[in-house]
């Protein structure tokens, strides 16, 4: 039986399997990241200066400069991703993680990327949104032969335009993206002062269908996914976006799921300042509190974090802020369980009535199958959060130091600024004058003259 420990062991073994310095002397080293915490990158040690982005629950890939070319080494390989504490997934990714590390370069950089395939099947890397020579576009069979297992290919091009991009395979995509093969790409402007922000967060939207009690996603699922994630993490395991009051904040997100995601921010209005096609001219920007990110799209939004507090940031499709749940569970709301509950309990000791007052479990703690997450979870300072999936918090604080991304804890609301129970008198109930009595609906009668033809 697989358990967390053996998974961790497995992760360590994957680490041990990295491309060694001796074995690939001519290649840049392929660094590895097994941890799922957000790694705030240091300022660039070599090459042109830029302001690094912060990859939510991820990291940026180190590089080496060789003859004025920025060299990266990606290793496509099976990885074990901790989707949330207590839940691990057998996925495919790059350099020990999924999504793979964020590649950060500067406009005009010549980039050479070595890609070693340690997957059991062919792969390729498509540099989504980059304007590059056709033979570097990474569509296997079209622009290049696929990278066979065990082989290393090299891509080389100039990062022409600053912007928000991503990389993913263009070989057996249905399987490889369902297994988590994806990564972020940011091309910074040559002038670091150009549309500079104080905090720049990036993540990819991804969805998995992992049957509770199992570890590997069902890669043939088309739409009915049960785990909706930011960077392959589900709330409450998605790090909050911590900012200082007054910061100019940019959030960039790319959608590699099979459906759109209306991403919504509380407490602020923002503007969509960029797509994977480039930067939006200031005159064309709309104020928004929700931006829909279609499949295969990327959005950069910007705002001034002027409103202190813990602000929800989430996909507005309500089932995307849930974790694994039964999609065929009948509605139990309003169903009287008196008497019958005792009968069931006699047959199934341990049975508890659920759902007759709604979907909430009201803080019930009950054992669930191994390696899955409660449908909704997380506890805030005022109780159950009842959220999962694509949900995190934007934490705006007065005194958050520049460059400090650590969680400041729950927001301390000023006296009298929290919604509270009304203890005064309630007005008597009233009905609309001349309201008609409700009538039971009769079954609909449909007259058919000819059989349906579809």
């Amino acid at each position, binding site marked *: 039986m697989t358990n967390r420990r053996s998974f961790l062991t497995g992760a360590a073994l994957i680490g041990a399997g990295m491309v060694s310095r001796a074995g690939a002397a001519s290649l840049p080293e392929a660094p590895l990241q097994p941890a799922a915490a957000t790694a705030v990158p240091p300022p660039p040690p070599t090459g042109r200066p830029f302001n690094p982005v912060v990859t939510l629950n991820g990291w940026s890939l180190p590089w080496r400069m060789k003859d004025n070319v920025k060299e990266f080494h990606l290793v496509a390989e099976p990885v074990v991703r901790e989707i949330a504490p207590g839940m691990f997934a057998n996925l495919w990714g790059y350099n020990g993680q999924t999504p793979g590390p964020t590649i950060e370069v500067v406009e005009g950089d010549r980039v050479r990327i070595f890609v070693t395939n340690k997957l059991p099947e062919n792969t390729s890397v498509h540099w989504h949104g980059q304007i590059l020579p056709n033979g570097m576009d990474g569509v296997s069979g079209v622009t290049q032969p696929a990278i066979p297992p065990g082989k290393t290919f090299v891509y080389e091009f100039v990062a022409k335009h600053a912007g928000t991009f991503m990389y993913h395979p263009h070989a057996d995509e249905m399987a490889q993206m369902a297994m988590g093969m994806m990564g972020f790409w940011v091309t910074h402007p040559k002038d670091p002062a150009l549309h500079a922000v104080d905090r720049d967060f990036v993540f990819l939207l991804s969805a998995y269908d992992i049957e509770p009690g199992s570890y590997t996603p069902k890669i043939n699922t088309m739409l009915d996914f049960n785990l909706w994630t930011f960077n392959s993490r589900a709330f409450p395991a998605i790090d909050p976006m911590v900012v200082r009051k007054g910061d100019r904040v940019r959030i960039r997100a790319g959608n590699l799921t099979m459906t759109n995601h209306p991403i919504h921010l509380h407490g602020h209005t923002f503007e969509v300042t960029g797509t994977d096609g480039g930067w939006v001219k200031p005159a064309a920007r709309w104020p928004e509190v929700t931006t829909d990110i279609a499949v295969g799209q990327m959005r950069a939004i910007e705002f001034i974090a002027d409103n202190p507090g813990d602000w929800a940031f989430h996909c507005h499709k309500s089932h995307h802020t849930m974790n694994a*749940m039964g999609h065929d569970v009948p509605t*139990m*709301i309003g*169903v009287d369980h008196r008497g019958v509950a005792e009968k069931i309990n*006699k047959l*199934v000791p341990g*049975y508890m009535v659920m759902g007759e007052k709604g979907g909430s479990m009201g803080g019930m703690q009950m054992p669930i199958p191994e390696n899955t997450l409660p449908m909704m979870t997380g506890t805030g300072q005022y109780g159950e959060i009842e959220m999962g999936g694509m949900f995190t918090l934007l934490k705006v604080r007065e005194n958050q130091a520049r460059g400090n991304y650590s969680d400041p804890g729950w927001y301390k609301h000023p006296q009298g600024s929290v919604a509270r129970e009304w203890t005064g008198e309630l007005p008597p109930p009233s009905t609309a004058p001349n309201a008609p009595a409700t009538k039971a609906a009769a079954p609909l009668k449909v007259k058919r003259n000819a059989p349906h033809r579809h």
Partner: protein
Amino acid sequence: MSALQRLKPRHAGLALLALLLSGCASFSQDGGFGVVSPAVQSRTGAETRLLRNEDDQRALGKLIADKLAQELSADDAVQIALLNNRGLQARYWELGIAEADLVQAGRLQNPGFSFKRSHGGGELEIERTFTFNLVNLITAPLAQRIEGRRFEQTKLTVAEDAIKLATETRRAYYEAVAAEQGVEYSRQIAAAADASAELAERMRKAGNWSKFDLAREQAFYAEAMAEVARAGKASTASREKLTRLMGLWGADTGFKLPQRLPELPASAAELQDVEQGALRNRLDIQAATLETQHTASSLGLNKATRFINVLELGVVRERKGEERMRGYELSLEIPLFDWGSSRVARAEAVYMQSANRLAETAVQARSEARESYLDYRSSYDVAKHYRDVVIPLRKQLSDETLLRYNGMLLSVFELLADSREQTAAVKSYIEALKDFWVAHATLEAATGTRLNNAPAAAPAPQKQAPAHDHSNHGAHQ
């Protein structure tokens, strides 16, 4: 061959004298039960008796009352059947008939005396005759031998019938216990379906479900109830069969059966050579052997007497309607035309026939022993598989189903459906366990031995096993 020697003319006088001196064959103390009772006891584990008088009846009544006062064990049921089954008792009286025949055969016919007085024509004639059946004198030892063998054979076949009844009773007992258990589990399945149907009705009332969904759940329940009725029918039939075999009626039919079958033994009995054991222990083989010996001696007799040709011995087998008559026939004839060769050939044929019958019985016994042993072993394996593999897996499925219900991944209806399925699996295990115990009884009968891992006389009280309880499947382990 001693009969033959006694018939030689020079010994005839001696034989006659011996007969006269020894008087007649007399009735035995035990009426042949000295053989039957231990043979039955060693093979069934229960004693049997012939009920001769009211005292015996009273003693039996008390014994039955004692046994029925508590939960009936398989051995109790066998014991009651061996004593109280009137068909068997009727069969026992055949021992008496055979013994009477034996005694009769050993007795000389009474001498006859006749007195005749006639007068006519002035003449008075008085005739006194004293008759004594000399032929009877010659044939009596032979007849006695034959009747002796027949008596022996009757003892064996009677004992065999008693053992058959015991086996049948044991099987019926396991069937009846299993059937009652089956009713209980059918009820549990129905209870799960009932809860589903009731909840479905509430779902419909709350507006959450359609008539379609409601009808589906109600259909499950309706079928489950039919299954309860069917299980009840099967239970009544198997209980009545057991009642009949035990010869019970009236208030005695209210006997209590245990709630559970005996547990599966830790291991199946290992029999080294079931065929040899069967040949050694089975009474039908012993009876067939006796018959062959009997025909062999008649063949020898024929061979020895072919030249003097004074005797014809034949086995008589007659059928009158339903009754089958067996006996023998003795006749004396004068050797004038026939010097006996055909008679010897016939006797030889009869002997060969009987020898072949014995061989057939042996082949059958060997095959039955092998078959029942293999059936017993595989029944054990099936029951063990249910106990050790299927039931724990079903249990695991139920645990996982509950976890999925907790995580709102499955609904309560799936929980109840699983409960039905788990109960059905337990029902199948009971069926397998019953098959094992029936096979156990069959093997004992086929090999004529008692197996050492027979169930305890009084099965240990076992816990009731509701479908999902964590501990209860231990009861089957």
